[in-house]
């Protein structure tokens, strides 16, 4: 089936089988391997991408459903060669740890901050409750998301330029 999707700002015309999962379309067809596959059962959240700006678990969406829509993956966070504030904050606050859950955590964090620019600890933890960190290092992830808020921007901007 022929579809057109915009991924990280670039438009692609693709011929995909309807049963191809969005996560596989992103990884295997578009070769964007920053989006990970973890549980493959809608639980862990490492495959999270933004579909028209909204976080979705790409193991539980078919690629064809994205026809005509916009997808942002972790690769789309970098802007003009600089880290996005959320990436800079994860680096600064050691929010990556093993790095496996990071793409999902950062995209959910980005979506949260757009809705709520200064989230409390509880609000961040609530927002990332669909994302599992097997290092169980949630403290630094929460710190990083809060540090990436517009209120804490000077830190993020410095890091981003570095």
């Amino acid at each position: 089936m022929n579809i057109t999707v915009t991924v990280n700002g670039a438009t692609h015309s693709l011929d995909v089988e309807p049963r191809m999962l969005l996560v596989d379309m992103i990884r295997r067809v578009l070769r964007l391997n920053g989006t990970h596959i973890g549980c493959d059962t809608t639980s862990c959240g490492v495959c999270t991408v933004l579909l028209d700006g909204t976080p979705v678990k790409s193991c539980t969406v078919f690629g064809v459903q994205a026809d005509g829509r916009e997808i942002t993956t972790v690769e789309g966070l970098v802007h003009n060669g600089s880290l996005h504030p959320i990436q800079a904050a994860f680096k600064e606050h050691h929010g990556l740890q093993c790095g496996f859950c990071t793409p999902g955590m950062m995209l959910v964090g980005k979506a949260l901050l757009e809705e709520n620019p200064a989230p409390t600890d509880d609000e961040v933890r609530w927002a990332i409750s669909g994302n599992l960190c097997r290092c169980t290092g949630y403290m630094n992830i929460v710190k990083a998301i809060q540090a990436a808020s517009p209120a804490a921007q000077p830190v993020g901007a410095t890091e981003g330029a570095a």
Partner: protein
Amino acid sequence: MYPRVFDYVAPKSREEVLGILAQRGNEVKILAGGQSLIPMMKLRFANPETLVDINRLPGLDYIEHADGHLRIGALVRHNDIVRSALVSAQNHTMAAAAPWIADPIVRNLGTVCGSVAHHDPEGDWASVMLACNAEVVVASSASQTHFHPGAEGTVTTGGERVVPIQSFLVDMFTTSLHPTEMVIELRVPTHTARGGGDYQKLERKVGDYATVGVATSLELDEAGKIANAGIALTSVSSSNLKVTEAEALLVGEPPGTDVFAEAAHIAMNACDPTSDVRGSADYKRAVVRVFTERGLAKALAIATAS
């Protein structure tokens, strides 16, 4: 994990969807949020030949207040309910349940109507709808005969019909929806200023099925007595269980801890939980009793708040 091969269509109008259903409804599954259907397809428990994606249909994501009901369109996502000021003001059982559905990312896609149509026996929304005596609006363009337990078959010739939730839900993963029909809307009675409701849920982790869930709804009359009561249980029977005996006991009574305890006792005895990784049957029954009492108390607190 990959589903079996299927045809995928994404119509842009309701007429097109109903036309496909009229032609080959038996082979079709409707894809709304897909957060229960796609996992089942990946496990090959569900193997539809055709998937009809209704996400391109305009005007199905409405939440409206009309004629004493909230009308929830087929493409309203769980998170739309979480964020809806109208729902928080008009139906306290729904408002309490919404943040407990799955996890925040799944709530972005999963739909309320889809959840009810899917009728996973451990789904939360069906209990909410049973406690609130909701109705399901279904549409079709084909003639068909409907059979309900204890009733003659009724023939409809397309259009819409409104089905009480109790006749809609038949058994686990089974509803009275005809293969040529689609769910268009849920109509959920609103709470008045003298009404309240709650949803209590115990889960091992965010996104897990309920160990136990209890939906409650109360309406008081002008004298302060219970005019209407709803109690429905999740994950403690083969399907969501409306505890009509406990509801009947409450109606006409002045609300209070003693009568709530009695209703909770009936609910505890009415359910039939199984022992599993989430807890023993005895434990779950005990939680049903406690949650029913707490849920009724919370509903009363809302109903009597000025």
